[in-house]
């Protein structure tokens, strides 16, 4: 990057950051009077959830933010180049899937986590240690990654990805969302696997605890211009950094500029961590539309890797028999 470009980018980041804090912004309203969050948004970010070990401050300077982003983009590009990592099957950069080609939801933060103050997840609770041990046992019983569909990763199985959460997180690629509001509801469509959150705003009670969902069950309300969403009833099968079915997520969405939603969330799960933790992120306006992400319907990858694994085993067995025969 030339120094002129770098200066320009620093300026852009500075402007974006400063504007995001402007108190003068008046949030537009929907016809029924809700603060209007509608449109297409991206939460693609190079900012890690946890603060890197070698960083001790909460915010980068604009120049440091540019440098950190540049380094992260270079790492991402290197990691997704075929041949550099064992399981890279196509070049993300070539297909426009790397973050540097997305609308980046930039901030100057060094980590999304703001509480605990060190920007790291809190210590694992005693119960959390037991949960992790039990999970490791269960994973062992499932066998190796290529032993069955079920022993593979959730994203490779097209069941759920990182985007929809809650909390909604950078999904590595296609971190795009569409928000549509109607009286009494906010709907958030996640591009990845077309996952939809329909959040009722009418104060209805949470369903019984025996109804469990991958994305939990969300209830929302407006506190001034802030949409507050509480989610419980998770099935715990898609852990967020270890979370369990007892997780409670509180999200706060507030539009602070035409192109920016402040997105803060708190995760409370005593079954994993000794204390709740909170993060601050942003969603940045991006160009629509979202495309249909028919993941499962086109999942040749899972099928082919399982076929490949079984063929490899047959081949090894045949080779072994041949070696025995020749002795």
């Amino acid at each position, binding site marked *: 990057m030339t120094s002129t470009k770098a200066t320009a980018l620093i300026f852009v980041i500075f402007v974006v950051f400063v504007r995001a804090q402007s108190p003068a912004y008046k949030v537009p309203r*929907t*016809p029924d009077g809700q603060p209007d969050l509608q449109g297409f948004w991206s939460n693609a970010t190079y900012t890690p959830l946890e603060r890197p070990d070698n960083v001790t401050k909460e915010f980068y300077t604009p120049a440091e933010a540019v440098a950190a982003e540049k380094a992260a983009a270079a790492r991402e590009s290197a990691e997704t180049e075929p041949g550099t990592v064992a399981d890279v099957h196509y070049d993300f950069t070539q297909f426009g899937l790397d973050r540097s080609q997305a609308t980046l939801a930039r901030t100057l933060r060094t980590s999304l986590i703001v509480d605990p103050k060190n920007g790291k997840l809190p210590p694992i609770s005693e119960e959390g240690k037991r949960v992790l041990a039990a999970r490791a046992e269960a994973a062992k019983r499932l066998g190796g990654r290529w*032993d069955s569909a079920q022993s593979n990763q959730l994203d490779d199985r097209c069941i759920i990805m990182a985007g929809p959460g809650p909390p909604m997180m950078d999904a590595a690629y296609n971190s795009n969302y569409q928000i549509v509001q109607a009286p009494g509801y906010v*709907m958030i469509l996640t591009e990845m696997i077309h996952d939809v959150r329909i959040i009722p705003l009418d104060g209805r009670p949470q369903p019984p605890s025996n109804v469990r969902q991958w994305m939990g069950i969300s209830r929302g309300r407006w506190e001034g211009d802030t949409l507050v969403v509480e989610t419980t009833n998770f099935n715990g099968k898609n852990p967020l950094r270890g979370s369990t079915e007892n997780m409670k997520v509180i999200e706060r969405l507030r539009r602070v500029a035409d192109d920016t939603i402040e997105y803060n969330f708190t995760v409370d799960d005593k079954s994993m961590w000794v204390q709740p933790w909170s993060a601050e992120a942003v969603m940045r306006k991006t160009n629509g539309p*979202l495309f249909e992400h028919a993941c499962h319907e086109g999942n040749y990858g899972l099928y082919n890797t399982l076929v490949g694994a079984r063929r490899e085993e047959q081949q090894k067995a045949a080779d072994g028999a041949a070696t025995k025969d020749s002795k």
Partner: protein
Amino acid sequence: MRNRFLTRMTVAGIVTCVAAAVTLVTAQTPGYRAPRAPDGKPNLNGIWQAINTASYDIEAHSAAPSPVLELGAAGAVPAGLGVVDGGTLPYTPEALKKRNENRANRLKLDPEVKCYLPGVPRATYMPYPFQIIQSQKHVMLVHEYAGAVRTIYMADQTEAPADSWMGWSNGKWEGESLVVDTKGFNDLSWFDRSGNFHSDALHVVERFTPRSADTLNYEVTVEDSKVFTRPWKMSMPLYRRVEANAQILEFRCVEFVEDLLYGHLRKQPSQ
């Protein structure tokens, strides 16, 4: 005199019948004006569901046994009078042959069995609710089955950028009706569990028209010159899920079909 009186009665009867028929055919309850959304458009917001047997077969059909022995009566097919205008789909001879092959191999070929996206209009009358979230630029149809979702563009309308399962929908208001024009389909979805199918030339025009506080008329015109000899129509009412706690829940069926689709590729203990 008596004869003339009878004639008058008959004429009156015929007029009444014709009026009733017109009411049925136009499907829009005359004079019904839907409550308005905050922007003044008819308010279609809500959770809706079809109550009929179109998901089994959009044509008229008798009751039939379950295709899966173990499910017994629980998996059997309830009879239905069909939802297709004129009763029978106007297939070309080759397409009819393919429909019958589809039907005979339903368990192997029906995309629903594999938890694939349902396509349109099938999504609307599957035995799952869907929610309409109606805004000015976008009207969302969010289906419980497989989390299928459609964005209906009321503004910024474009041609389909690529073929897809749920197609590319542009909408407009015509009086009390939401009229949705959808193209850009792939040729992989079906109309029902009986093998009725379409090609990638499918063009669907749907009309959602309120007929009372808690019912909509759903009318569909289907055009597909590669499969049918002429356009055809289907229609049915949709019913509001009026439970106070009604909500779209997750039916994330991918994990339910993994053993069906990939079970034969599981590593055997002996290996």
